[in-house]
Structures are given as C-alpha cells and as structure tokens.
C-alpha cells in the first residue's frame, strides 16, 4: 500500500472511531472499534494459526451447544472430537470462517446490547406503572440491570459459564433457548419447503424466460415475477386463505398440527423468493447463453437439451446460488407476517416481539441465531460455488 493509501485508510479509521464514540459514548465506541479491528485481523491469520484458532473456537461452540442440549460431559467429548476432526481435515477456508464467527458474535452481542439500551422503554415498562421497588425486584430477578455494560457482563457470564441464553422476560418460566428450540424446527421445515418451491419455480420460469428473451413466455414469467415481488405476503396469504380455506375448504385456515397446515404458509413464503430467483436465473441464463463455450458446444452439434442442461445450467444458476445463502438464512428464521397470519409457532415472531417488548435476552438470542445461520449458509454457498465454478475451486 502506498503512502497516500495509508493516509486515507488511517483517517477513515480515525473517523470511524470518532463516529462510534460520538454515537455510542466514548467507552462503548472504543470497545466496538477494538472489536472491529480484532475481527478484521482474523483475515490475516496464517493457515496454521487459522487452523488452530478455528479448531479451538469451533470446539468451544460445539461444547456450548452440546452442553445446553445434553450436559457437560458429552459437551467435552464432542468438543474434543470436533477440535481433532477440524484441525485434521476441515479446509482452512471453513476454519477461517469459524475463527471469524466467534469474535463477531461477541461484538454483535455488545453492539446489540448498547443499541437496545438506547431505545426508550424497558422489558418491565407497562401501561400500569410498576412501583420502583417492584421494578428493582424484577430487574434483579431477571438479570436486567439499568446499565448496558453491566447487562453485557451478566449476559456474557451466563452464556460462557452457564451456557444459557438467559431467561425470557415476556414469556416467563422459559429460557430463550427453550423458546427457540421448539420454534426452530418449525421454521426450518417451513423454510426448507418454501426454499424448494421457490428454487424449483424460480429456476423453471427464469431459465425458460432467459432462453427466449423478449418472447411472450419471457414477458409473461417476468410479469408474474414482478407481481410476486411487489404483492406483500399478507395480501397473497389472506387471498389464499379466503379461497382455499374459507370458500373451498380444502386446507385449514391456520394453525400447526398436520401436513395440511404447511401448504399455504410455505407457498406464501416462497412466492416472493421464487420471483426474485426467476429474475436472477433469467439474467444468468441470458449471460451464459452468449458465451463462446456455448457456441462451441453448438458447433459440436450437441442437442439443445444437452447444451442447456449440461453447459448452460451451471453458469446460469451461479447468481441464484449466491442469492440463496442469505436468502436461506432469512427464510429459515421465519417471517413475522406469515407466522402471525397462519398462526405458525416459528422463530420469526421472536425477532419482532423481542424488539417490541424490549425483551433483551430474546433480541440477543435471535440475533445470535441469525448470525450463526447466515455464516453457515454463506459457507455452504462457498462450497457450492467451488463445486459449480472451476475458477473458484482452486482457492478453497
């Protein structure tokens, strides 16, 4: 890096620190800046260091998750096994992601805590005012002190030492993991199904459109896609409810107690994603069909079917694959609108309710869950890319 670059970068960093200090307070701002520096530094870890750090962090995560589910001893065993396997066999790229994940989560918890405390209100605020004594008793009982920093300390201690995400305040008697554990499979199965529907529908429509750009079928499917993206899901969902549940009586209105209950929410959830995927697949197909290797394939006399399925498909779905990573994380953590509309007991509601209720532990729990899922799916996307695109493969 030349001198000018260093000056620019340096002043940007100073501006960042000052900005953070102004926005969050001096101590908090410095802490966030330090955390950011720490996280960025994981990108420069050498391969061996990345291997060690990734294996250790991964083992710690494995220990935490297993201990919460099965107890301390299985936790230790799983952690040791994971560390060994990870160090020995996992690609550096994966371990680098894990080394990046752990400090990011700490910073995420810290920043979220600071921001939550900035919002007016508290988990104990009600229309009928609680007396100061009552509020103090509740704050002590649920470990929610009045300062953000002490909450962060309590939360981290609970997370690391006791291995719990803390008690939920607006749904008492349960910890956050007890709230999320039954909700996660619901959101996962709903999200997976929606993802399959979205991918299948989107790829079919999009590739069809992309193969014959500006034809009638192109305009028709892109028109449909535009409608799918612009119509809010509560409209589509409510319309489906009226037609299929109330008028025809084929499907139940709402609830979650049988296979028939999954159909409408999954389709509603899938439609906007399907529309988006269709547009991506269309542009990917158009791009790839103009490539020289397609021309070569044609010149060889291959049938159109083989050209499309074997030669064009991998290139055409690349933009879709990179979209699917974050989309999968989003779709599987549920959707508030669809869950409330169809009364689905999934995770999505907790993102919104946690924030509305200022239920700090729930907010943090959902944030951690989301961050973990995003990291995981981005990793999957990287692997899928390597599989689909030879240009990327060598870098793994």
């Amino acid at each position, binding site marked *: 890096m030349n001198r000018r670059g260093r000056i620019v970068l340096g002043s940007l960093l100073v501006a960042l620190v000052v900005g953070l200090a102004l926005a969050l307070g001096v101590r908090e701002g410095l802490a966030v800046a330090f955390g950011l520096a720490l996280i960025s530094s994981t990108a420069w870890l050498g391969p061996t260091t990345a291997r060690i750090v990734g294996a250790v962090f991964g083992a710690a995560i494995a220990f935490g998750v297993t201990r919460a589910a099965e107890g301390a001893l299985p936790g230790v065993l799983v952690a040791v096994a994971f560390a060994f396997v990870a160090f020995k066999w996992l690609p550096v790229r994966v371990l680098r992601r894990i080394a990046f994940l752990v400090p990011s989560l700490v910073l995420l918890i810290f920043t979220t805590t600071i921001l939550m405390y900035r*919002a007016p209100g508290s988990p104990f605020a009600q229309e009928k*005012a609680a007396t100061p004594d009552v509020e103090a008793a509740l704050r002590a009982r649920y470990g929610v002190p009045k300062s953000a920093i002490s909450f962060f300390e309590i939360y981290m201690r609970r997370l690391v030492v006791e291995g719990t995400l803390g008690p939920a305040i607006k749904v008492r008697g349960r910890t956050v993991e007890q709230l999320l554990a039954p909700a996660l499979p619901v959101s996962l199965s709903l999200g997976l199904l929606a993802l399959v529907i979205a991918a299948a529908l989107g790829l079919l429509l999009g590739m069809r459109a992309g193969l014959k750009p500006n034809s009638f079928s192109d305009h028709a499917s892109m028109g449909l896609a535009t409608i799918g993206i612009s119509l809010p899901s509560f409209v589509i969902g409510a319309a489906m409810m009226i037609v299929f549940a109330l008028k025809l009586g084929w499907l*139940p209105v709402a609830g979650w107690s049988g296979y028939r209950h999954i159909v409408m929410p999954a389709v509603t959830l899938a439609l906007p994603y399907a529309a988006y995927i269709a547009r991506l697949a269309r542009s990917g197909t158009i791009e790839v069909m103009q490539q020289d290797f397609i021309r070569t394939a044609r010149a060889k006399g291959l049938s159109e079917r*083989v050209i499309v399925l074997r030669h064009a498909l991998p290139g055409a779905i690349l933009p879709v694959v990179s979209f699917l990573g974050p989309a999968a994380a989003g779709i599987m953590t549920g959707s508030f609108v669809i869950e409330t509309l169809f009364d689905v007991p999934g995770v999505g509601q907790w993102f919104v309710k946690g924030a509305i209720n200022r239920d700090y532990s729930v907010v943090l729990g959902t944030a951690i869950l989301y961050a973990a899922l995003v990291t995981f799916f981005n990793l999957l996307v990287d692997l899928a890319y390597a599989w689909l695109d030879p240009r990327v493969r060598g870098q793994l």
Partner: protein
Amino acid sequence: MQTKKCERPTKKNGVDSRIAASWGVAPDGERITFRFRPQRVFYEGTTRDRHGLGLLAAEPSPEGEGGYSRASRDDPGMDRTLLGILTAFAVALLTVGLTFSRTVDAPADFRFVNETELQTLDPHVMTGHPEARIAEAVFEGLTRYDAKTHHPAPGVAASWVVAPDGKRITFHLRPNAYWTNGRRVIAADFVYSWKRLLDPALGSEYAYIIFPVRYAEALSTYDGHATALRTTIAPRALALAHDHANGMDAPSWQRFLAANDVNDALSPALGNDADLRDLLARRAGTVTGAELRRFAAAIGPAADRLRKSAAEARAHFGVDAGVFAPDDDTFVVDLKAPTPYFLDITSFNPTFPVPKELTEDPRHHDDWFLPENIISNGPYRLKRWLVNDHIRLERNELYWGKSEVHNRTVDAFPIENETTSLNLYLAGEVDWLPAQHYPSDLVDELRQRPDFYRHAGLIVYFYRFNTTRPPFNDKRVREALNLAVDRQVIVDDVLRLGQIPASTIVPPGLAGYEPPVSSIHLDVQKARSLLAEAGFPGGKGFPDSGILYNTNEAHKKIAEVVADQLNRNLGIKVNAYNQEWQSFLATCRNLDFDIARGSWVGDYPDPNTFLDMWVTNGGNNDTGFSSASYDRLIRAAADVGSFLDAPESVLADLDDAGPVREAMVRVAQASNGPDRLRALAALRMRLFREAESILVNDEFPVMPIYFYVLGGLANPNLRGFYPMLQFEDGTTAPNLQDIHPLRDIWVDRSGGAPR
C-alpha cells in the same frame, strides 16, 4: 505444505505459471520430486474469454479433472448439476417430512382464540386478560365469579361471614378442595399465598389489590420505602436544604420530589403531620429554607416509623392479624376499613392460592407453572402449553365441582392477527372470538350477524393533558379543549359499535355509584370564550401542540378527528403524532407531551380503580395533575371511618358540602349491622362522586372521550356464556368486566336451540 502464494494464479495470460503444486526433496538430497496439479487453466476476473484460453476450463468437468473427454461424448443422461439440484431438493423435502411429524390430537370440546401468548401462568405475577382467563380455569380462589351474575360464588371457601362492622371476613373452606397432587387446599395455603403476593422480591404488580387488608401495605412496601428514605432521599434532602438555605421556588421543589419518588416513600409515614403534607403538595409560591431543613430532619424519623410498622406487620400478618388461619378450615381476613368490593377481589387471580411445595422449591422458582411441573386446584389441569401454538386444558377429576364442568378438554389459541382469528371463527375452527379481536373495519358487517354479541365494558378512553406545560397548565385551556370536542361524531363515525360518549372518568353501570353531573359537553361558544380568557382569542398565540398516541390505526383515526375539531372549533393548530408502544410509555412517564392518549381498564367494579390514579404523583397519573382537596377526598373514601372522626378538613374544600353531610347523618342514624354498612358504602360513593366532580367540573386534567363497548363472536350453541348478566330478580346488566369463566362455558353439540 503448499503455501497460499503457490495457489494464486498469475495475471499473465490467465495461465498459472507455477505449475508444480508441491515438491519434496529426497532424504539424500539428490532427488527433488515435483508433484504437478492436474492440468488447469484459470480465468482472469471476467467471464468473457477473449483469448480463447479458458475454453478448456470453462467446461465443468465431471470428476474435477481436466476432462474434456466426457463432455465430448454426447451423453443424453442427466448432468451432475441437474442431478445435484434434484438431490438437494429431495434431501430438503425429506428433512421437512422428518421434522414435521407430531402427534395430532382430536379437536377439544371447546376452542377459543385467546388473543396473545401468555406472559406467565403465575396468578400472582400476571397482568393481562388472556392470562387471567387461563388462570381462572386452572386455579380457584376463595370465591369465584358466578358466570351468570358475577356475584361471588363459593370457590375453595364453601361459605363466608362478614362481621357487623364490615372489617372482618371469615371464610370457611370446603373439606373437598384438593391440589392436583392430592393434597387438601387448607387455610394455610392462602396465608402463604397472600404473603407471597405481598413479598416485594416477587415483584407483583397487583400486590396493591389486597392493600385494604390490615398490615398488607406495610408488609409489602414499608421496608422498601424506609430504605429509599435512608439511603437516597435523606442525603439528597440534606444537600437540598444546604444548597437552598434561603428557600427555593415551588416548581423546582416539585421536580425534586418527583425525581426522587419522595411522595411514594414518605406519605405513608406522615400520619397527621399536616404541615409536611401541605409542604409536599405545594405547587405555587416558594418553599423557605426553614421548611427545607424541617423536611430534611423529618426523613430519618419517618424511615424509623416505617421500619417499625413493617416489623409490626411481619409479626402479625399471617399470625394473628391481617390474614390468619385459626385452623385448616378457617381463613380470616381483617380489613383496614369496610371494603365493599373485597369479595370481588377474592375471585380475582392475584388472590389465588399457589402450591407452596413448588413455589418454594429453588429448582422450580421460575418455571413451576409449566405443564411438566404445575400443581393446581382449579376446574382444569394444564395439559400442554406450546408457545405461540396452543394451550390444552383437561378437566381436573379431583376438582370438587367437576360435575358442573362440561368440557373434557379446552384449547386456547394465542392468535394476535385479527383477520386470522376471524377466519378461524368463520371456518368453525374456534367457538369463541373474545372482545374486540376482529378487524375493526368489518364492524358494520359483523354487527349484522346473529352470533355477534356486544356489551358495555369497564374501560374509559381519554386524553391526558400535560398540566405542567404551558398553555395546558391553565385549567381554562383544558376546559376549553374539553368543550370543543364532539364525541358523538367519534362514536358514530369512527368506532361504530354504539360506544358511549364520555363526559366523566368512571364508566356507567357500577352498582351504587352515581357519577357527578359533568360540565363536559360540546359547547363551542363557551370554549372560545374560555380560550380568549386564557389569553388566546380566536386561538391566536396558541402554540402548535401535539396529540400523542401509540401506533395503532384506531387511535390514529380518533386523534385526527380530535385534532381537526380543535383546529376548526378553536382555531388552534394541533397535530396528531404516534410513537411505538415502549417509546410512548416512556414519553408519558416523563411528561414529555402536550396531549396523550390513554385508556384505563377497571380492575374491580368500583370507582376507586378509576379515581385513585389521579392523586398527586400517583404512579399512573402521568399528567402532573395535583390537587390537595382531591387527594383528601380519595383518602377519605379509602378509609371512611377515619374520615368520620375528622371530617372538617375534607368538607371545607367542597363548594356544597350538603350531600356529604346528609350521607354522614344517615350513617349516624343507622343501627349497627348491615344498615350501617350500607350507609357507610353510600357515604364512600358520595365522596368518590365529589372527587370525580373536581376532575370533570373544575380541574379537567384529562379529556374523557368514550366508554368502551366490547363486541365478539360466539357460537350460537354456546352455553353458560353471558354477555349480559342475568340476575335472580330478572334484571340484566352488561358484563362490564368481560369475564367469562371457562369453568361454565360449553358448546351444546346436540344441535339444540340457539342461545
């Protein structure tokens, strides 16, 4: 080991110049072995292949090796990409099938929409309506609400006796009331439970509901107050007296009191110290240095008095006074003063018994009420509680009155979405849609349905004025605004369910209470002249003001109508603006508004629940309103006996003390026993009426808008369900508190005549 650098393709021609992937040197150093990577060509950054060099590599190779060979065969079989996609789909669908497997119950005998997910099922901690519905089904107090009349009906107590002076109630417990673990429910359970309710460490927001019981308030709050006085208020008061040796102005004095919660902590220890009381209520003029010093000096002794009272309460409450259990079958409640509504409170969930064996178990301190742990004593058992999914109740076969419980099972669905709730009802998947839980835009159509029911509710909707902020600190301005709003328009055009325009705070229909004649009605002429008197003729010079409401479509419509009316009728500029719920609460608490929306649900059928909130610095006052005479009237009504001992300070405030004196004479004339109790109750109501009159005829700290009418949908075959209460003498009254005990509701599926 290969390094990162080795892997990186060079830019030149897009061909990797470092072809050897790794190498090894033989032990004798004479031979070096290079291992080559499979032939591979890299692209430059773009997908365009200008040099034609990428042709080989762009071909996705089946085995990841240089293989152009397989692609050259015109293989009609499926390619691995397509195969991969289909496999991924299949795996995903399989996973869905595996995770989505759950036992499916038969539908319950009675199913209803329970609005929201429960915050808790601890009857001492819960605050909401949906929680109370389930708590009343799972637990049972000394008494319970009779479904038809809401009169107290025998619950755990088979009978009770009220002493002639109205200050002691003796409950006789039934011998066949059991916990679900088979243990008998005895009087000691209630002693324990009420002490638990009052324990400040539990943090119950409804502990105050049994403060009419002797020693209850002292037990619950005095220690906390004493600590606050000693540790924070005393040093700050000393500092204040020191800094303002020459006195200070009353508004700053009031700010000091409010910032330190002085009134809450100090007022129970004031006793008859009228000087200090007046000092605390001083809002105008100045506070002298001597007064400040006297105030600072009074705090220590006050804290000591509170500690002593708390110790006394601990020694007696549950032992021989307040509440106590002479034996397993008898539970005695001592009241500070005759409290006519107390038998309504013993049907209310904060007074329910809880199982000591669980709540005192440290392992179940926080989760004792979950289905896997709970021990309860009500008509139903908690069978299952899936968060955001449903609650399944099952008839409790140990319940003493199980023959009166028709349902074997009940399902409660926590559905917040109103459209979904309505659709579930219309599809016949639930039998009851409770009050106001349908899309309000559909009210006109729903009203036409025969299964739609509605009744008045014990809820008032109002606007708070910030009486600490000009120009709303001028009561003429507050009156003018009150007179300039046409509530009938709001009720007829916005709400459309026959709501009642409000000119008072206490909703109509409370037995024994006649609201004062109110000066609040639409009178634009008078409103304009009042505004002119206050210095804003024709609205000139009136600052731009805001009506704050929490984000909600209905609140928005009302706020806009009111703002528009004020604008047109008075020529003042008022804007409606909204805040999200938590911000809204914080803004109201901090008195950072001009006009703010509010509503109040009566906790029990008595005017006190609507009036005691407006006392000086009351926790839910949120207007800054303070009136010494109002405070005196509310205190007098809370303890009519003490008022009768020294009535003159209260009567002196009244413009016309005649009716109160008459009521006092009737008390004096009444013979001991029920007659006297009735006369005392009438006097108490009269005092409330005088207090409310201050709000709606003199001070106007709020703008009442309307009283609620609650509407819902109920299966026509529902039995034991009474939107209108039906009394033995054939009269009816609205189900004001919207209480429908699940114990008595059931669906007649035999196809009998509609309700």
